[in-house]
């Protein structure tokens, strides 16, 4: 009772201060007379897992208001993209949600393919699905295990990071790099899966479920963990939709919106999988939805790998897809195409395309306007983080500082995607 009375008092003080400052409260000074504390959570704080700031106004341990400041790693990708040919934009997409770069890469390729009208063969589509689902698993593993770390449980993090390392080894085998993958090309993949890649993938698919099971046993019904996350930072479905939530955060609130099912791309309609949904939209639900999505992703990978069709791994689109390097040295046409593609002199139709994929943390959309030039006229990224992080300041009001950290962690805000 006493706490609530004090809270009502401080709310009034804040309201008065807000009215005085014309509706903009950017607290900077500690107000000792009212016993309020201003706390800077970030920009470099180990619990934010990225560079963004929250200025919290605290009454003791309770948060009264949170003002997020973002843009610390804004790199003006949308502006840079206006100067780059299509294939040079792929590395920019890597650096948005860097926990699941392959999904970003494929999303961008799909956008350009839609604009150009390139048909990608089934094998390449299935290969993409495999890589995208691996990326989703890696993304969810990072989010969930670090949520564990933020509640004080370090062991689970170490268990599953071993597995993330193995996923990165598969990436390395498929495309040559690990974190910022720049995987695939417009029109397909840059090379076929090597036998080693397939072998690594099969080995990992056999070993990973046991680790995941162990991880789930460690957390899912753990009393200490549940006390920290159940009913922390809940959000209703209506609010979540109004705030533009997508991905696991929206599904945790009970809305079964998944781009893979609603607007299937890259042959997702061929696979059988379920959309897990939560009920409360709290931290525990977000955690559980991500865990279940990892199992569903495994199902998809297994189906795609078992049914991987034979055939070419890229479209027959010489105007857009780089010829093999050997051919460039020996073959006139290949040299011409190579030169034209690298110099960005390919013909693009005039038009506008919106293509979205289910990213690690929501609907990742690419809105591309082409005026027929070598670069996009305008490229807009719909970054799920940027859109749902707005709700954070509302979600933390009234909670304690330690809850705020857990909520932030469970929302899976990636600074690279937030700022683009």
């Amino acid at each position: 009772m006493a706490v609530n009375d004090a809270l009502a008092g401080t709310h009034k003080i804040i309201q008065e201060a807000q009215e005085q400052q014309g509706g903009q409260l950017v607290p900077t000074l500690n107000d000792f007379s009212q016993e309020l504390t201003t706390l800077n959570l970030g920009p470099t704080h180990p619990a934010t897992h990225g560079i963004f700031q929250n200025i919290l106004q605290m009454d003791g341990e309770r948060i009264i208001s949170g003002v997020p400041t973002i843009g610390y790693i804004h790199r003006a990708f949308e502006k840079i993209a206006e100067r780059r040919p299509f294939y040079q934009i792929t590395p920019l997409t890597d650096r948005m949600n860097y926990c699941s770069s392959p999904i970003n890469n494929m999303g961008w390729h799909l956008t350009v393919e839609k604009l150009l009208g390139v048909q990608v063969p089934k094998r390449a589509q299935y290969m993409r699905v495999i890589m995208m689902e691996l990326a989703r698993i890696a993304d969810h593993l990072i989010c969930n295990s670090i949520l564990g770390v933020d509640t004080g449980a370090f062991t689970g993090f170490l268990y599953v990071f071993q597995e993330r390392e193995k996923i990165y080894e598969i990436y390395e085998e498929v495309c040559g790099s690990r974190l910022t993958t720049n995987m695939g090309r417009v029109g397909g993949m840059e090379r076929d899966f090597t036998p080693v890649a397939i072998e690594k993938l099969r080995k990992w698919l056999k070993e990973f479920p046991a680790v995941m099971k162990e991880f789930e046993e460690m957390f899912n019904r753990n009393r200490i963990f549940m006390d920290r996350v159940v009913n922390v930072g809940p959000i209703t479905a209506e609010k979540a939709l109004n705030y533009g939530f997508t991905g696991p955060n929206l599904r945790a609130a009970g809305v079964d919106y998944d781009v893979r099912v609603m607007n299937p791309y890259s042959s997702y309609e061929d696979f059988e999988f379920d959309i897990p949904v939560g009920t409360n939209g709290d931290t525990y639900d977000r955690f559980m939805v991500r865990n279940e999505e990892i199992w569903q992703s495994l199902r998809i990978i297994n189906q795609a790998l078992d049914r991987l069709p034979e055939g070419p791994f890229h479209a027959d689109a010489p105007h857009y897809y780089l010829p093999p390097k050997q051919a460039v040295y020996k073959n006139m046409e290949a040299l011409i195409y190579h030169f034209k593609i690298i110099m960005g002199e390919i013909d693009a139709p005039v038009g506008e395309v919106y293509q979205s994929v289910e990213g690690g943390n929501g609907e990742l959309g690419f809105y591309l306007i082409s005026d027929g030039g070598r670069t996009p006229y305008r490229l807009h990224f719909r970054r799920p983080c940027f859109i749902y992080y707005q709700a954070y300041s509302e979600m933390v009001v009234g909670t304690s500082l330690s809850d705020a950290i857990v909520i932030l962690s469970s929302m899976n805000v990636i600074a690279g995607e937030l700022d683009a």
Partner: protein
Amino acid sequence: MADPTKEESTAAQDTAAAQDPTAQQNAQVLSLLHSLFGEATFSDVHEPYGLLTVTTKREHIHNIVAGLQKDETLKFHFLTTMCGINYPDNLNQELGMIYHLHSLIHNIRLRIKIFFPVADPVVPTLTDLYATANWMEREAYDFYGIIFTGHPNLRRILNVEDMDYFPMRRQYPLEDGTREDKTDLFFGR
């Protein structure tokens, strides 16, 4: 006197619509839009890559988005994204905003565009309808200097606050125009 060519083209459109479910759906959405807000409200209707795109005036945008949100048949409850755009050559329509709406129930997407002069870049806010519009509008303000009347906190969001220009406008080239070491006769760098 009916124009035979016009009749023919509408007939051709109808048969095309009957064959393509997206086109059929878009035609339905368009007729509903016309009945709700009047035919004169929309111009430049087209469907690039199956996504119904309409252009309207900025006076109507708030009404349209609010009406679509309330509408029981279409249920456009989700504002996917919005972004600014700059066409410096279109006189008195230099700046624009592009809205993407999504009806999650029927899985219909709709793109609405508005254009207005760069000298008067004032647009009504959508923050009273969608909480998610808040940062999207701040981003559009930050990049293009579009002013949203009624926005609760229209400040720069990604760039530093003391920046005195709007960097995504086309008049600001990406690279320093005074540098000569990067000029390339053939590729324009």
